[in-house]
């Protein structure tokens, strides 16, 4: 029984999760294109299947059957590995996110928070190595921007996470969702949500912080030399990251799989995964909304914002949270 519970069940869960995430990624591209088109007063994809629903399938087929081009001037091993390195962290971060009552995605590890921070830390390697191995000036600039940006935004992100940790008092994400919270805790959390969201935008390289791949100055940034399925892997990593971070935000700020009055928790626990999915979709809408309406800051402005605005705010927030916890909890 032991080996069954330790190996087979997690394997099946992981496989199901990966299939769901890849499908989710495919339809997230469709969702983004449709939404952006609506913001842009266009129609978006509407030729492949009803409402263009088969568009992701067509895209996938196209990407898979494209010729594998590996330029001669690249560092081949790293060049091929980099897309995988970008994608894997985006997937494995899901292991600790609770998707239903008593039902963590793969395992309820007691150090869920640390897992998220650790995996988020290695996410940038894929991008940096891709830019470095491409041996191309645009890619290199994109990679340098990416490393600097991710390091700068991980600091306030980490400090915000510590604040949440202080409130929760537990490293486990499952306990975080299940534990009851006082009303002032919710409000105090939500005050911080916009800033946290900004950090997440930078962390996932999403517009307006998509400076590593600014198409209008660096052509495609770190992925300039990539094509076909290897490019699709980077694409996948970015979009799965969006889904992942949305799920994390839903878990940390909006009660994960639970709705008020215990729906999804004690009442109708089978609804949990769907409630989480619904929250993720709403948060993804935010990502796309921001992309359609905000311009892009310059690289130095982005860094200045992180170090001179976000970092002091997050530090102050952490201190105040600690005081609140000490005196009211």
């Amino acid at each position: 029984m032991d080996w069954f519970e330790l190996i087979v069940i997690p394997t099946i869960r992981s496989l199901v999760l990966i299939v769901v995430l890849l499908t989710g990624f495919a339809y997230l591209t469709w969702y983004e294109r449709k939404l952006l088109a609506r913001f842009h007063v266009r129609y978006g994809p509407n030729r492949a299947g009803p409402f263009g629903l088969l568009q992701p399938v067509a895209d996938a087929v196209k990407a898979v059957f494209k010729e594998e081009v590996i330029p001669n001037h690249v560092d081949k091993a790293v060049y091929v590995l980099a897309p995988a390195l970008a994608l894997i962290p985006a997937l494995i971060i899901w292991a600790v996110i609770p998707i239903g009552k008593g039902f963590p995605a793969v395992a309820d590890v007691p150090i869920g928070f640390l897992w998220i921070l650790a995996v988020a830390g290695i996410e940038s390697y894929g991008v940096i190595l891709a830019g470095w191995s491409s041996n191309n000036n645009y890619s290199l600039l994109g990679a340098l921007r990416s490393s600097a940006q991710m390091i700068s935004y991980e600091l306030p992100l980490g400090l915000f996470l510590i604040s949440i940790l202080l409130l929760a008092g537990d490293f486990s994400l499952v306990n975080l969702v299940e534990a009851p919270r006082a009303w002032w805790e919710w409000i105090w959390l939500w005050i911080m949500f916009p800033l946290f969201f900004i950090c997440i935008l930078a962390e996932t390289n999403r517009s307006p912080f998509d400076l590593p791949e600014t198409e209008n100055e660096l052509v495609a940034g770190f992925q300039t030399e990539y094509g076909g399925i290897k490019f699709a892997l980077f694409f996948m990593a970015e979009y799965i990251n969006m889904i992942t971070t949305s799920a994390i935000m839903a878990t940390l700020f909006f009660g994960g799989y639970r709705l008020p009055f215990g729906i999804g928790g004690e009442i109708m626990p089978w609804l949990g995964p769907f409630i989480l999915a619904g929250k993720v979709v709403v948060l993804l809408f935010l990502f796309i909304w921001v992309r359609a309406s905000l311009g892009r800051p310059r690289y130095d402005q982005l860094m200045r914002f992180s170090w001179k605005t976000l970092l002091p705010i997050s530090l102050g927030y952490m201190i105040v949270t600690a005081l609140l916890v000490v005196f009211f909890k």
Partner: protein
Amino acid sequence: MLDVAPRVRQYEILPSLQPPGIPAVAPLPTGESEDTRRIAERFGDAVLAAGLHHGQQVVYIKPEQLVALAEFAKTDPHLRYETLIDVSAVDRSELPVSDHRFHTVYQLRSYSRKQHLMIVCPLDDGDEPTAPSLTGVYSGATWPEREVWDLMGIRFAGHPDPRRILMPENWPNHPLQKQVPLGGEEVPFTLTWEDPEFESLGKQILEAKSAPPKLPPGMSLEHMVINLGPHHPSTHGVLRLVVELDGETVVNVDADLGYLHSGFEKTGENKRYKDFVYYTDRMDYLTAMSNNLGYCLAVEKLLGVEIPPRAQALRVIMAELQRIASHLFWLSTHVLDVSGTGMSLLMYATRERERILDLFEMVCGARLTVGYMRIGGVSRDIPPAFLPHLEEFLKIMPEQIDDYERMLTHGPLWSERLIGIGKITREEALDMGLTGPMLRGSGVDWDLRRDAPYSGYENYDFKVPVANEGDCYARYLVRMEEMRQSLRIIRQAVDNLPDGPYRAEDRKITPPPRAELDISMEALIHHFKLMTEGFHVPPGMAYQGIESSKGELGFFIYSDGTARPYRLHVRGPSFNNLYAISKMSKGHMLSDVITNIGSIDIVLGEVDR
């Protein structure tokens, strides 16, 4: 390598059609003005002729005194010609003259005194002439002089950067010289596997061996040198910028032009006057109406033809609609450059531009390359449905502009990206010969529509927006306000649209109406003559500048009395404004180079012509 012997031109005019007795020599000025008298007094014998020609102040000066004259014109308190608008040249080898084969022609403007001065400098030394360079007086002469060297083969003594600019470095001739044929040249690069150059290029791709790059003067490989373009998402076409970077800070920028050079000037010299109108559409394809207007006005200046008021008002409406369309497209691409493809304003501005294109389609059937205007008027009257649609456009447009401003002017990210970027002071703008919003964004209160009115602009009441900061944000504000003022002009033009003919009744210039052909022999003759031969333009030279959406669009025409322009030169505002890119970008970040390109508002079809 290449056969440059003269060939028979395809559209050679038969000798019998050449009007007899017209002296095809330099158009000499008559009379005098205050400025020309002052110059003639100051320079004495060096001035070969000075006076008025078609209402333009013209001075013929000996090359020895050219630089002194320019300095005098710039610094003399009574003249104050602050800026050099254009440099061009005429190859007179096909005229019945024996001396001074090349003339260089300079257009100077005084913004404070609202004056225009044309300086003509006949060059000695026959086929390989050298002219003194004016770059020491006006730095804006740098690119135009390079262009004259490239296309006309005139060297400029003392030029700081005497490279070719539009044609490849190894091009064997100077295309605008009259002995160079139109078309049929052998292209001096080949695409065969045997060609050693191609072989090395192929190896470079297949074997990852990169040759040391050929750097523009003044750059070194100590820093990272990257190539923006010619195939780059944000260079607005096929512009190539070589950018030297220290980290992400720009050390040096060098522009490489000519990827879209299509020889409009040479083509124009081989077309009849009336047939070149359609070619002007293709230069700056975003302001086709303004290009038509500028060219027609230049020819009409030489013809001395009177344009009926309705045609003038229609031209104003179209030119202003075109200005709005061009500014809208500038706005959408500028937003794209600064903010990325997701930004929705890109599509909002394009949506409104679409309405203008629909209006153009109603009047002439085309949307982009309109070819609507004719020498002597416009090609046809507006259809009855045009005015209601235009009214609707006038009604919704002001709200839309407010909407854009709400998204940009009051948004923190937009001003953060634009304020303080690409700064040009008033003096620099004048020195570099910038025009249009680039000039007004730097605090020079000048608009040709108001200060040198043409096509009846003096009858309209509008303001010229000026901003003093000289950065990208100032230029953005100027252009946004210009759209509002253009709406005002269109409003007035529509309200006071006169009745009457839509083109001049001069049958020597405009064809008679179709109905007249059936009943009038004379009309038939006129029609036949116009369609087979075109009309003859009296000899002379004229420079006509108009305020296009990007700046001063100038046409210089040198006529020898035949049905084709002897020399046709286009002063493209994009070309002269792009010269500022190097100065604007140095010391800023790489992203700001892209912002600056967008802020200059270039169309490569016009830069390269």
